[in-house]
C-alpha cells in the first residue's frame, strides 16, 4: 500500500471537514420552518433538483454572475473553483486508471506524483499528466489574480475589498499555499523521477537533483499541512460559503423563501456569503457617507459570529442595492430585517385608541396618499386634478383621518404594531367595496403589496396614470423640457416598477442617468435608517444628485414624496413628482398656473 506519514494531516482535515459539514447541514435543515420544510419535501424528487445541479455548476463552479460583473473577477473565481474541482476529478480518474480499481486510497490522487515514481504504464498516462498540469496552471493563474487583487483591487473592477478577520486570514494563507506548494512538491519529485508534465517538469529544471532530494519530503509535508489547515479552518471561516452556497441553491430551487423570521435558511445564507465585498462597492453609505463596517459583507459576518451590534443592524438604508449586486443572491435586506424585528407580544393591539369609522361605499377607486405625501401637498392637489380630468370619482381614504400603512414601523422591527395598523387599514379598504386602490407613496405601495393580502388590485399612481393615458382618459402635451427620472428604491428594486414612469414621461425629453432602474440610487432620506444623522443623509443625497444631474436636466422627476423632499432640499434643480408633471401638462384643463413653460424652480443661492 502507498502510504507515508505526511498524508495524515490531510486525512485528518478531510475527515474533520466532512463530519462538520454533515453536522452543520443537519442543523440547518432542522432549523427550517414548517413552510420551508414543506417545499423541500415537495420538490426533493422533482425536475427542480436537476435545475439546481445545473445552477450549482454555473454559479458555484463557473461563476457566471461574477463574470458578467467583471470578466477578470469572474475568471479568478472560475479558475480557483472550477480549476480545483477539475484537479480533484481528474486526479481521481488518473489514480483509478493507475490503480485499476475505484477503491484506491483516497490520498493517492492527491499525492500521486509522490507515490507513483516509476514510469509504469497505465491507460492515458500522458493525457492525464498533461491535464493535471493544465488545471494546476489555471488555478495558479487565478491565484495570481487573487494575490494582485489584495494589493490592487481595481484590476478586478472593485474599489474596495473586505477587511478579513483572523480565521479568514489563516484560511486564506493556507489556501494560497496549497497550489504553489503542490507545484513545487510535484516539481521536486519530477526532478528526481521525471514523472512531471509540461509545467511541473519545467519548474523541475530549476532544481538540481541534490537540492530536489533535500526538499522533496518537506515540500510534500507542507502541501499536506496547508491542505489540512485549510480544511480545519474552512468550517469556521468565510470558505464555508463553498458548501453553504450549494445547499442554498438547492433550497432556493426547491422553492424555499426567506420570510420575516430567522430560520435555518437564514443560517445557510449567512454561511453562503463569501465576503467577496462586491456589496461594499454598491453601498452608498460607504462611497457617499463613509459609514464603515456596516455593509452587508460585514453585517453577515457579524451575524454569523454572533457579534452583531444594534448600530450595524440599524445603519442601513434598506435600499436593496447590495441585494441587487450580490453574486450569490443572498437576500440581504430581508435578513437584516429579521435581525431588526423586536420581540413583541403577539395579539396585543397597540392602536386601540385610534378611532377610524365610516368608509365610503359605492366608489370604484380608493385613493390613499400616505403620510409622507401629506407632507408634500403638491402631489395631492395634482392627483386630485388628474382624477378630475379623467372624470373619475374616488374616495380619499386618508384625507382627514388615517393611519400609517405600517411599513416604517415594520422596517424598524415593530412587527406587531405594524400588523395592528394593517388590520385597521384593511377594514376600511375592504369595507369600501372598491375595485382599485391607488397610492402616491411607494413605501405604502410595497406595504400594501406585501403585507396586506388585498382582495382588490393595487396601483401606484405612476401605474394608474399610465393606465389613464393608455385608456385615453387623459392626454399630455409634449414639452421641450429635459428631464431625468429618479427611480425610488421602494418603487424600483422593491416593486419592480420601472417602465410605467418612463412611459408616462414620454411627452418630455427624457434623458437617462448613469444609475437607472435596478442600479438606482437612494435619496438618503430612507425611513428605514433611523440612526444615520442628517449630515450623512445629506452626503448620500448630494452624491446621488451629482449623478442624476450629470446631463443638466431642467427638472428631476421622481415618484416618491420622500425622494422629492430630499432632493428639493439639495437646492440644485427643480424637483417634481410624476403626478405634478402630469397635472401640469394635462391637455384638457388649462389653468393659469400651467401657462409657464419651464418648471418653476425655487430660488436658491448657489
Amino acid at each position: 500500500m502507498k502510504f507515508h506519514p505526511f498524508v495524515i494531516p490531510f486525512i485528518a482535515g478531510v475527515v474533520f471537514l466532512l463530519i462538520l459539514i454533515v453536522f452543520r447541514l443537519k442543523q440547518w435543515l432542522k432549523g427550517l420552518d414548517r413552510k420551508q420544510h414543506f417545499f423541500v419535501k415537495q420538490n426533493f424528487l422533482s425536475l427542480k433538483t436537476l435545475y439546481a445541479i445545473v445552477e450549482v455548476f454555473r454559479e458555484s463552479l463557473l461563476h457566471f454572475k461574477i463574470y458578467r460583473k467583471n470578466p477578470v473577477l469572474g475568471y479568478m473565481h472560475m479558475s480557483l473553483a472550477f480549476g480545483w474541482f477539475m484537479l480533484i476529478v481528474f486526479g481521481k480518474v488518473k489514480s483509478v486508471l493507475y490503480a485499476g480499481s475505484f477503491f484506491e486510497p483516497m490520498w493517492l490522487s492527491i499525492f500521486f506524483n509522490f507515490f507513483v515514481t516509476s514510469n509504469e504504464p497505465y491507460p492515458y498516462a500522458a493525457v492525464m499528466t498533461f491535464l493535471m498540469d493544465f488545471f494546476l496552471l489555471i488555478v495558479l493563474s487565478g491565484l495570481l489574480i487573487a494575490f494582485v487583487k489584495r494589493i490592487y483591487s481595481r484590476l478586478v473592477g472593485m474599489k474596495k475589498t473586505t477587511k478579513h478577520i483572523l480565521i479568514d486570514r489563516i484560511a486564506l494563507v493556507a489556501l494560497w499555499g496549497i497550489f504553489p506548494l503542490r507545484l513545487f512538491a510535484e516539481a521536486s519529485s519530477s526532478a528526481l523521477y521525471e514523472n512531471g508534465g509540461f509545467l511541473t517538469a519545467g519548474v523541475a529544471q530549476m532544481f538540481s537533483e541534490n537540492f530536489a532530494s533535500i526538499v522533496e519530503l518537506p515540500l510534500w509535508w507542507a502541501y499536506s499541512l496547508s491542505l489540512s489547515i485549510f480544511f480545519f479552518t474552512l468550517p469556521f471561516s468565510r470558505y464555508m460559503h463553498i458548501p453553504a452556497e450549494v445547499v442554498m441553491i438547492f433550497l432556493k430551487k426547491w422553492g424555499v423563501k426567506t420570510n420575516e423570521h430567522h430560520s435555518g435558511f437564514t443560517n445557510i445564507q449567512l454561511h453562503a456569503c463569501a465576503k467577496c465585498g462586491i456589496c461594499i462597492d454598491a453601498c452608498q453609505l460607504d462611497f457617499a457617507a463613509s459609514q464603515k463596517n456596516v455593509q452587508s459583507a460585514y453585517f453577515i459576518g457579524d451575524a454569523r459570529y454572533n457579534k452583531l451590534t444594534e448600530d450595524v443592524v440599524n445603519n442601513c438604508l434598506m435600499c436593496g442595492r447590495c441585494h441587487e449586486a450580490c453574486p450569490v443572491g443572498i437576500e440581504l435586506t430581508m435578513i437584516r430585517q429579521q435581525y431588526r424585528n423586536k420581540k413583541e407580544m403577539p395579539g396585543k393591539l397597540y392602536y386601540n385608541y385610534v378611532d377610524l369609522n365610516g368608509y365610503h361605499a359605492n366608489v370604484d377607486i380608493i385613493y390613499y396618499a400616505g403620510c409622507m405625501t401629506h407632507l408634500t401637498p403638491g402631489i395631492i392637489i395634482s392627483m386630485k386634478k388628474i382624477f378630475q380630468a379623467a372624470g373619475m370619482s374616488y374616495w380619499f381614504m386618508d384625507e382627514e383621518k388615517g393611519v400609517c400603512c405600517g411599513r416604517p414601523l415594520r422596517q424598524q422591527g415593530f412587527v406587531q404594531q405594524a400588523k395592528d395598523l394593517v388590520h385597521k387599514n384593511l377594514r376600511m379598504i375592504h369595507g369600501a367595496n372598491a375595485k382599485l386602490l391607488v397610492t402616491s407613496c411607494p413605501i405604502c405601495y410595497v406595504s400594501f403589496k406585501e403585507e396586506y393580502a388585498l382582495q382588490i388590485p393595487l396601483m401606484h399612481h405612476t401605474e394608474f396614470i399610465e393606465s389613464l393615458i393608455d385608456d385615453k382618459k387623459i392626454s399630455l402635451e409634449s414639452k421641450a423640457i429635459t428631464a431625468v427620472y429618479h427611480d425610488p428604491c421602494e418603487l424600483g428594486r422593491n416593486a419592480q416598477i420601472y417602465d410605467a414612469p418612463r412611459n408616462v414621461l414620454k411627452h418630455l425629453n427624457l434623458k437617462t442617468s448613469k444609475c437607472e432602474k435596478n442600479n438606482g440610487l437612494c435619496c438618503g432620506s430612507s425611513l428605514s435608517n433611523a440612526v444615520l444623522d442628517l449630515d450623512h443623509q445629506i452626503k448620500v443625497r448630494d452624491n446621488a444628485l451629482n449623478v442624476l444631474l450629470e446631463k443638466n436636466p431642467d427638472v428631476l422627476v421622481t415618484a416618491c414624496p420622500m425622494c422629492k423632499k430630499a432632493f428639493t432640499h439639495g437646492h440644485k434643480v427643480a424637483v417634481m413628482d410624476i403626478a405634478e408633471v402630469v397635472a401640469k401638462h394635462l391637455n384638457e384643463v388649462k389653468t393659469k398656473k400651467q401657462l409657464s413653460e419651464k418648471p418653476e424652480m425655487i430660488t436658491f443661492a448657489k
Partner: protein
Amino acid sequence: MTAVDVLVIGGGPAGLESAYSLANNGYDVAVLEKEKNICGHLNQAHSLFPNFQNASEVRSAMIDKMTHPKISIHNDTEAIRIKRDIDKWGVETGSGKEFMAPALLLATGFKSFDPKYKEELGYGIYDNVITTTQFEAMCQKGSIVSPHGQKVKRIAFLNCVGSRDEKVGNHYCSRVCCINAVKQSIEAKKVLPEADIYCFYMDIRMAGQFYEELYRKSQEVYNVNYIRGRISEVSPTIDKRLHVKCEDTLSQTPMKITFDILVLMTGIEASLGTVALGQQLNISGEYNFAKSLSLHMADNYSSHKGLFLAGTCKRPLTLPEAVADARSAAGEIKNYLKTLKQ
C-alpha cells in the same frame, strides 16, 4: 468710469446710513442699488418693532439724507464683478457702468427664506398661506382679508420657518422673527379685534429692549395665544380654509385647528448678491454670509485691504443694529482713507 472715494454696494438702510456718514465727513460716495428704489427691505415694512413707529417715517428720513451733494445714488445698478488694483477697487455693473474707489463697502443685505422648501406648510399651494412680508403689506392697506373672501376669524403665525431648521440647512436663529411675530399679531388684533390669534413657536426669544414687555402686552392686552410646537402639516378644508396639524408640546397634546390665514415668519438668509459677491471675493463664511475679519475686534473689516462690511450681509440683525453697524463701518473707512493719504 466713475471715480469716487467710497463705493457702497447695496442701498438698504446699512448702505445708506454709511454713505450719509461718510458724505458728512467730506467724502464722495456712490451707492449702487440693484432695485428701482433704495431702502431695501424697509420698503416692505408697515410699522417697526418694538415701538410701532411708522416705517414710512424712517424711509423718508433716509431718502432725505440722500440729497447730500456728496452722495450719488445709482438705481437699477447691480454690481456684477469686483476687481482689485493696487489700493483701488473697481466695480463692473450689469448695466455696463464702471466705478472705481479706494474703499469698497459691502452692504448687500439679506433675503427671506423661500418657504416653498417647506412644502408641508403649503406655501404656493394654498392661497391663504402667506409670508410675513405679505402680511405686512396687508397691514399697510389696513385690511386683513382671506383670499377666498371669507371673514377672517382665526390667524396663525408660525415662527422659525427656515431658521433653526436642520432639514433646510439653516441651523441658526434669524433673531428678528419672534419679536416681529409679536408685533404683527398685535397689528392683526388692532385690525380685527374679534379674531383669534395663535402664535406657534419653539422658543420665544425676546432679547431686545422693550421686547419682553411687548410680548407680555400681546398676551395681557391683546389675548394672543402662544403655543409651543411646530406645525407639521397643512391641508385644505372643504371651504378652502386651512387645517393645521400641530402639537402643543407643553401640554403634550396633538391638535388640529382650522385657520383662515397662516403667516409664515420666514427667516433671514444671505441675499443672492451677498452670496455671489462673497464667493467672488472669497469672504463667504457660514451659510454664505460675508465673513468679517474679527467679530470682536474688526467686525467691519474683511480679509481684504480696503474692503469693508456692514449690516445683514454678515448675519441677521435688527434695523437699529444694522444702522449702528453702518455708522461704525463709516468710521473705519474714514480712518482707512486717512492712512492712505499719509
